[in-house]
């Protein structure tokens, strides 16, 4: 029940005469108030979808940055194949789409009173809240790796200055140097991302610094699109790139940023450039709002994305535990649309309909060489579950012209999804 309806009921007989007029006036202005925290692929996409479905809904998007730097394709920036400008988007078209962008940080959420407090002191009331904060890096999870260490050993897992820092370090490295990557256990943002990055760093080394080596220390034995990546690595980067899985002692237990060393159960590796992708959790506001569980991520309903921990609050994008769906930009944008549809239904007192969601993720292994994974999801036993017989990875035996076409489609996808999300 929305606060407005509750208020009307609470007014009782004394308010009976006045209520219809007040209610009608309110309805003409707004069909409900939705506040969204976070202007990424999930939050910004949800804001636009809400206005497209129901133009009378009042939508406020809380986002502290004027510019959004997108992660997909940022590995090309790392490898010197793309400018960071191509990753950057703003919120200038949002006002004309009827979305009120509030440039501030959300600092508190009162789920009972349905109110968000901003760093600037204002409070915003909502009928439905959408929490879409993306990830926070866990500075407490890998001994030796904290914010100061990240200045010497960049994570580059939130695109922006960190992306450029890793690129500059690669450019400054002498030919014959060793690049070491540390990859975390699941779940984390963009499951195939570390392997795309490894591929493109290998491409950079092969073409610019061919006597160099790339070592991937991995806390896992299996990863997304693995057979496609390993086949491409064997063909394109033999001897240059080495992947060390968990079972061969790949899990990094600690780092020393001053010495540029990474230590596993068996060895200590000295790096010339170290890219440490640390474990992650949902953005901090999720914990503050009480929607994150002990894993650090947010359990949600598979139809509405409403939190299983706090009614009236929905969680979408990387922060959510979305069953089989990966933490990808495509999935975040898709969840934004489905969540918007569910919210419109709920505000109108209608039963939300069972959704189908799609995820498609492209990875670029070298310029003009693209591979993909896709899946279709539906709620089953309370979880978003992959539909059997659909989806899967690009064929292992695909021709080079198909790899080229997939690289082209990856470019097209980026253009479309960023237009869809940011206007």
């Amino acid at each position, binding site marked *: 029940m929305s606060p407005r309806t509750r208020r009307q009921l609470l007014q009782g007989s004394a308010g009976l005469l006045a209520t219809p007029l007040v209610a009608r006036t309110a309805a*003409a202005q707004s*069909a409900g108030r939705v506040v969204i925290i976070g202007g990424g692929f999930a939050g910004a996409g949800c804001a636009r*979808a809400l206005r*497209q*479905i*129901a*133009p*009378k809904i009042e939508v406020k998007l809380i986002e502290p940055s004027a510019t959004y730097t997108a992660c997909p394709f940022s590995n090309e920036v790392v490898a010197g194949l793309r400018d960071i400008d191509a990753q950057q988007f703003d919120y200038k078209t949002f006002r004309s789409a009827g979305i009120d962008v509030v440039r501030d940080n959300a600092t508190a959420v009162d789920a009972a009173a349905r109110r968000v407090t901003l760093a600037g002191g204002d409070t915003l009331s909502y009928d439905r809240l959408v929490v879409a904060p993306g990830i926070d890096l866990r500075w407490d999870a890998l001994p030796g790796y904290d914010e100061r260490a990240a200045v010497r050993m960049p994570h580059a897992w939130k695109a922006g200055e960190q992306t450029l820092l890793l690129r500059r370090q690669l450019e400054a490295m002498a030919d014959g140097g060793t690049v070491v990557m540390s990859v975390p256990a699941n779940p984390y943002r963009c499951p195939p991302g570390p392997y795309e990055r490894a591929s493109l760093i290998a491409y950079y080394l092969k073409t610019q610094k061919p006597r160099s080596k790339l070592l991937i220390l991995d806390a896992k034995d299996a990863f997304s699109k693995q057979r496609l990546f390993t086949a491409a690595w064997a063909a394109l980067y033999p001897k240059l790139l080495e992947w060390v899985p968990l079972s061969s002692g790949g899990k990094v237990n600690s780092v020393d940023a001053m010495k540029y060393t990474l230590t596993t159960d068996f060895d200590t590796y000295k790096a010339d450039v170290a890219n440490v992708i640390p474990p992650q959790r949902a953005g901090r506001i999720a914990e503050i709002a009480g929607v994150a569980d002990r894993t650090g991520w947010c359990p949600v309903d598979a139809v509405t994305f409403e939190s299983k921990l706090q009614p009236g609050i929905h969680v979408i994008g990387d922060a959510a535990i979305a069953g089989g769906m990966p933490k990808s930009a*495509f999935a975040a*944008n*898709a969840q934004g*649309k*489905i969540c918007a*549809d569910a919210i*419109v239904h709920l505000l*109108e007192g209608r039963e939300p*309909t*069972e*959704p*189908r*969601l*799609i995820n*498609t993720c492209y990875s670029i292994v070298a310029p003009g060489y693209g591979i*993909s994974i*896709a*899946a*279709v999801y*539906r709620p089953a036993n309370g979880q978003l579950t992959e*539909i059997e*017989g*659909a*989806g*899967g990875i*690009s064929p292992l035996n695909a021709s080079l012209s*198909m790899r080229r*076409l*997939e690289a*082209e*489609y990856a*470019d*097209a*996808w980026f*253009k*479309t*999804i960023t*237009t*869809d999300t940011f206007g």
Partner: protein
Amino acid sequence: MKGRASLVTLALLAASMPARAADAPAGATMCSGCHPRTGSAATSIPVINGRDAAEIVTIMEQFRGGKRPATVMDRITKGFAPDEVQAIATWLAEQK
């Protein structure tokens, strides 16, 4: 006076706006993750909004049956039953 007149116009416009768009069938809004909504954002992936519904259904069935060259659509089509494809195609045909 001019400002007041446009305020009245705005109010009338708001009153005549539909409260919401017709419900999209399951999966239909996912297409715009890759397919641009309008030609102005055209890419190598075609615009499918406003295409003839029967044509969309035929192409989807060709993808499903492996009778049409594909990169990813053959994998995605298999996640939708024929009646779901029909509903999505009808909805897409109405989008501008």
